[in-house]
């Protein structure tokens, strides 16, 4: 039995927009296994980003439950959520958000230092090596290409040894070749450091790097969930099919 690291139950997010009720998420039940690389694909407005934000504690659901690495996110206070994000989750966004006046190395260690924790220099060196940034450690972000900056952002996400990496369209600003370089390295790094990745994308090529692909449409998981090569021997998935059916009418 594989252990899971993220689980959502009946997750819903409704909000009002221009007088209309928007159902960004409409009953999502799914499970992410430990050390799995999961892609969530869907068109813009399908609710995929909302889902990722919920898992990362950046947004609160209207109803439903999220459990990440044994912690229920619903009952947490704002301060608890902040610390949760800092320690358990590594974020990678479309924009790199590197501090322009700090070197790559300083940028990477910054979150760990801000958290008042010990910087494991040997570990940082390993991350730089895996992401092919060793030579760029003392460079400033402005001197790097987009792909290199995004790799630095990945290194920063990995530095605090989070339980999961959440990537929201991380290659949105990159050309095809750089996108493949960046995601290939993300996959290699996650494998080496035994991390779980949830990747959001609208791009089928990129989604294929994952072990499993989940499609989201109109705030629900689409029935068709493509199973890819499993790292472990399990042949079926414990991902329950779109359980949203019962919730919509309520």
């Amino acid at each position, binding site marked *: 039995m594989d252990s899971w690291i993220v689980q959502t139950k009946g997750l819903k997010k409704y909000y009002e927009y221009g007088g209309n009720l928007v159902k960004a998420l409409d009953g999502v039940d799914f499970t992410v296994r430990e050390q799995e690389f999961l892609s969530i694909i869907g068109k813009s407005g399908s609710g995929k980003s909302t889902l990722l934000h919920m898992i990362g504690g950046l947004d609160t659901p209207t109803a439903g439950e999220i459990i990440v690495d044994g912690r229920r996110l619903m009952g947490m206070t704002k301060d608890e959520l902040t610390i949760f994000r800092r320690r358990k989750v590594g974020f990678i966004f479309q924009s790199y958000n590197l501090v322009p006046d700090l070197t790559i190395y300083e940028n990477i260690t910054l979150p760990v230092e801000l958290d008042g924790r*010990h910087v494991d220099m040997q570990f940082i060196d390993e991350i730089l090596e895996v992401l092919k940034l060793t030579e760029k450690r003392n460079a400033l972000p402005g001197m790097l290409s987009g792909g290199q900056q995004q790799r630095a952002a990945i290194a920063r996400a990995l530095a605090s*040894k989070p339980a999961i990496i959440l990537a929201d369209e991380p290659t949105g600003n990159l050309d095809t*070749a750089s996108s493949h370089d960046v995601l*290939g390295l993300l996959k290699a790094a996650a*494998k080496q450091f035994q991390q779980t990745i949830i990747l959001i994308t609208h791009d089928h*090529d990129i989604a294929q790097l994952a072990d499993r692909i989940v499609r989201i449409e109109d705030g629900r998981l689409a029935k068709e969930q493509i199973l*890819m*090569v499993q790292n472990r021997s399990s042949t079926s998935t414990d991902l329950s099919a779109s359980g949203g059916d019962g919730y919509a009418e309520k």
Partner: protein
Amino acid sequence: MDWFLIVTTAAALAVTAAALWNMHRMKKEVFLFSDQIEQALDYIIEGKEFQETLESTSDTLWGKCSERFHRVSHIHVQKEAAVLKEKQQIKELISNISHQTRTPVANIKLYMEFLQEEPLSEQGGEFLTHLCSQVEKLDFLLQSMVKMSRLETGTIQIKKERTNLNETIAGALGEIVPAAARKQLTLSVSCDEGLNIIHDRKWTEEAIFNVLDNAVKYTAPEGSITITVVPQEIYTRISIKDTGKGIPLERQAEIFSRFYREPEIHDQSGIGIGLYLSRKILELQDGYIEVRSHPGLGSEFCIYLQGD
């Protein structure tokens, strides 16, 4: 009276100073303590054995925990060793199976060859032909299963060496030429001849061959297969493009799963393991594979290898 005041003030000051000093010392010890715990945990997370410090026999906060950290770390390392031993046993089992089945299968094939030279009734000859093709299938299946379990249990040693990529591709092409010739397919390669990248020659050749094998299988006669190699900043991309029937979007990810067969071609030989193996081989080398395709417009498989 004045003296009394001075003495009490001095005493109070001394007490305060002592208390502050004490607090400072405690704070320092606590900080040191949490630092040391973090370092020890980092060790354990990385699977290295944490060595007890000299302090384990001293009466500090850290001293009280250091010994137990050492124990936890030791247990962790021991368990890892047990897992490794189990893997070793699986490896032996697999190699036994592959070794012990090889001889009987080879013998069956041999006797069937003898039988083909014997006079047989028409029906007898037909049965024999079926028997031969089934044995071929069994042989192929056994070999693939052994390969697959070796890759899955990580008992295959990937030997990464800086070698010529062109030669690796040529090796895979050499194997596919007869099948491609039978279907009159045009094969073309564009690759910088001097391109040397770090990869495992034998297994990469197998990964490329499996993709080519599929390309040949799904491309109609007189079609073409084009291989293009493009070095990128980090990865080198090997693109294998065919003019075959293409794959619908919803099946594109599934084709890499184990024992997947295209629904329309169950009459063709094969067991649906080639692309699965290719993907596995590339993952072991920190590379990956992906497909782009439209039904009717052919497929393009891209293999990405980390060159340096």
